[in-house]
């Protein structure tokens, strides 16, 4: 319906995939600056300092002889702190001036998925979140080592309970399978057991610092992934990250997060892993991914998940979420849609694609969009003549053009701007990119 061309559409895709939703104004700016320059600048930009994280002081552990009432009170305190951290992150995603930094942080959270269901420390989870934000564009080895020795991760995957006399395999297995190598690498159960030994002995303090206790650690040199002498977290990490499959796994997983539901072609995969190179360079890998022609032409295969959808809608419609009650309700909506930050369903992160497109989710999304639109700034639409409102809503949401189906669905609603917007964010054009 609109007259924007292919270049505008490609720029819109770039903006949406490097953030949460888009507005026409942002797309215009990228088109003017050129996409290569935009990619450079968003990857170089330091994350917005605001809003500052909530002060969540480490809580003392409940004593072993605590009464049921004391335990309940302690639980409430932990949950109160976690709710503060979750709403802070949601508000940050909605208001940040550096959306790509938050998008990357959210995708890394999905990658190194750790849940507050088991990690009962908002202090630890907030620290992990900050590490993902600051290290997520550096070199992957630094990030991977930070996660292998992170308090929340060590608790989540039972590293803190893994000792030389009886190693726990959870962290060693999931790090290979889900974080750095992929199930298809062909590592064996013997590798899992050897790797688990190398990772034994780490413990965490309530303040989130972690350290190795030599008497809990098995320093016997292991043969792990064919490498001799693996005896600690660093040598374990290096043995995994230097496998040829590791960069391919990372690049494929990130392509699936940012670009397309279809796997990358062999040539593209080659380019991505070459950029990542021996320096584990994430920024180079992202730059290549976002500037390759394959990225610009990939379209219509990536289903927008609940967080990206709702944050995108709130950003585009400039709905304030500073009020604590509004923020809590928003988090509740994400819980109902199955994607509450800090509560991934498992270490594998959230599902994708068809999983988000259930009849129940459709119902929730429509109601939610209606509630949000009722509180939105719709001046961009009301200022337009009725005949131009389809274009106005497309521009507001960074959509290049409506299909004839969506135009037919939206046209009867041009007289009710809130309903027009609520339906527009539920079109295939908005839900798939």
């Amino acid at each position, binding site marked *: 319906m609109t007259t924007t061309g292919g270049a505008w559409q490609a720029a819109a895709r770039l903006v949406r995939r490097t953030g949460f939703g888009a507005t026409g104004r942002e797309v215009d700016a990228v088109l003017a600056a050129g996409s290569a320059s935009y990619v450079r600048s968003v990857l170089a930009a330091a994350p917005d300092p605001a809003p500052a994280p909530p002060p969540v002081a480490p809580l003392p552990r409940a004593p072993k002889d605590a009464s049921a009432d004391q335990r309940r009170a302690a639980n409430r305190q932990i949950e109160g702190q976690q709710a503060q951290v979750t709403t802070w992150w949601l508000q940050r995603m909605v208001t940040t001036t550096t959306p790509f930094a938050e998008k990357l942080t959210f995708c890394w959270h999905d990658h190194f998925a750790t849940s507050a*269901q088991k990690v009962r420390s908002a202090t630890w989870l907030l620290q992990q979140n900050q590490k993902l934000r600051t290290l997520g564009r550096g070199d992957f080895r630094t990030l991977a080592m930070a996660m292998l020795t992170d308090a929340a991760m060590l608790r989540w*995957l*039972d590293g803190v*309970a*893994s*000792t030389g*006399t*009886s*190693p*726990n*395999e*959870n962290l060693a*297995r999931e790090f290979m*399978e*889900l974080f750095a190598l992929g*199930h298809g690498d062909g590592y064996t*159960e013997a590798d*899992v057991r050897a790797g688990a030994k190398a990772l034994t002995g780490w413990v965490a303090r309530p303040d989130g610092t972690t350290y190795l206790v030599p008497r809990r650690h098995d320093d016997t040199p292991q043969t792990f992934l064919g490498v001799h002498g693996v005896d600690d977290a660093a040598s374990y990490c290096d043995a995994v990250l230097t496998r040829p499959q590791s960069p391919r796994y990372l690049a494929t997983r990130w392509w699936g997060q940012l670009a397309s*539901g279809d796997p990358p072609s062999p040539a593209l995969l080659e380019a991505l892993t070459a950029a990542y190179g021996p320096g584990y360079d994430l920024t180079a890998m992202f730059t290549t991914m976002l500037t390759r022609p394959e990225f610009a032409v990939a379209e*219509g*295969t*990536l*289903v927008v998940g609940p967080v990206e959808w709702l944050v995108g809608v709130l950003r585009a419609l400039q709905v304030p979420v500073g009020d604590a009650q509004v923020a809590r309700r928003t988090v509740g909506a994400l819980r*109902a*849609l*199955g994607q509450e930050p800090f509560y991934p369903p*498992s*270490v*594998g992160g959230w*599902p994708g694609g*068809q999983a*988000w*497109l*259930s*009849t*129940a*989710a*459709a*119902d929730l999304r*429509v*109601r939610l969009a*209606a509630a949000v639109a009722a509180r939105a700034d719709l001046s961009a639409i009301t200022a337009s003549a009725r005949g131009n409102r389809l274009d106005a809503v497309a521009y507001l949401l960074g959509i290049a053009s409506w*299909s*004839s*189906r*969506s135009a*037919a*669905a*939206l046209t*009867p*609603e041009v007289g*009710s701007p809130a*309903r027009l917007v*609520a*339906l527009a964010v*539920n*079109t*295939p054009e908005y*839900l*798939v990119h």
Partner: protein
Amino acid sequence: MDTLTRRRFLIASGVAGGAAVLAGSAAIGWRDLAGHAAANPLPSGAKVLVVVTLYGGNDGLNTVVPYADPAYHGARPELAYTADEVIRLDPQLGLNPAMTGLAAQFRSGRLAIVNGVGYPNPDYSHFRSMDIWQTASPAEPVGTGWIGRWLDASGDDPVRAVNVGSVLPPLAVGSRCTAAALNPGGNRPLPQDFATGLTALAQQDRGDTPQDAMVTGCYRAEREVAATFASIRPAATGSVGGDDLAGQLDTVGRCVKAGVPTRVYAVDLGGFDTHADEKGTQQTQLGTLDTALSSFVTDMAGDPRGRGVVVLVYSEFGRRVAANASQGTDHGSAGPVLVAGVPVRGGRFYGEQPGLNDLDDGNLKYTVDFRTVYAELLERVLDADPQQVIGYAHEPLGLLA
């Protein structure tokens, strides 16, 4: 153009590609479906399958406990339950102390236990193993779930299978159809203005990608689901109708009693990945399962339509026989499967309990392929050909009367 021709046309013309997901449901037409359950109720005598997935890998040996076997106590001294702690079902096996309600169902003949269920070459990854169970394809990854393939093979009505919860599990996704989904908290109809808008957005468009078609397909199904389940209301009190297992099963029970023509429901319970401090955690989870499931089975037994309900309970794997140092267990292989309901020949064990002195690298060797259980359920509960749906046939265990 009739229903079938229209769908064939859509597929043949490549309008929505191979993933013409739910194209069939559009072809049903937009007749007024209010009172669907009344107009087109579950036929009397039709059975209903309720699939309960336990996520995380439930420790089978501490669920159905070989309390009389010294090897059990030797392998996990701090985790093992003594003969006095378990609820003894026979001289060898007993249930976890948290499972009082299910023990009663076993004794009343409404619960069967299949021992040693697994598949060849066990995979110790949660995701791969859950995928294997949900797709019924141990040899190679496939993109469709076993209930999804049953949907593909059995017609067009989008309410034939229903997932309770908004996120679809892999078992519910077929190549042509997916299960509908219900919000456990209630399913009020959308305001009319939005319902009209959604109906318009449900139309297909020439340029739709397969993913676009998933969006529109789910809108078409949503309209039908809304009409079918409009009369199903969660109870006003307590956690019933919530998103915990009891609430999910309460929703299922209400749908069954109302005569909704749904043949398969999927519900789930997580939290079974007990690498550390297992005993208390697992007992809490099994207690949740016990309370929810035993009251559901009792509730269904008292309803004419509910008497056709068969419940399947499974997890992606059992756990290692020996405990680790964290008072937990690492990922293992075979485990017990529970099958419950009035049509079940309960009060007895099926399959062989794997020997604790004959392990495969510390893990149990399976004695029953999980597809044997699926095949019997497909054939006897869903009146389907297991060979067609899961490509597997086996002499049935005789779980169903």
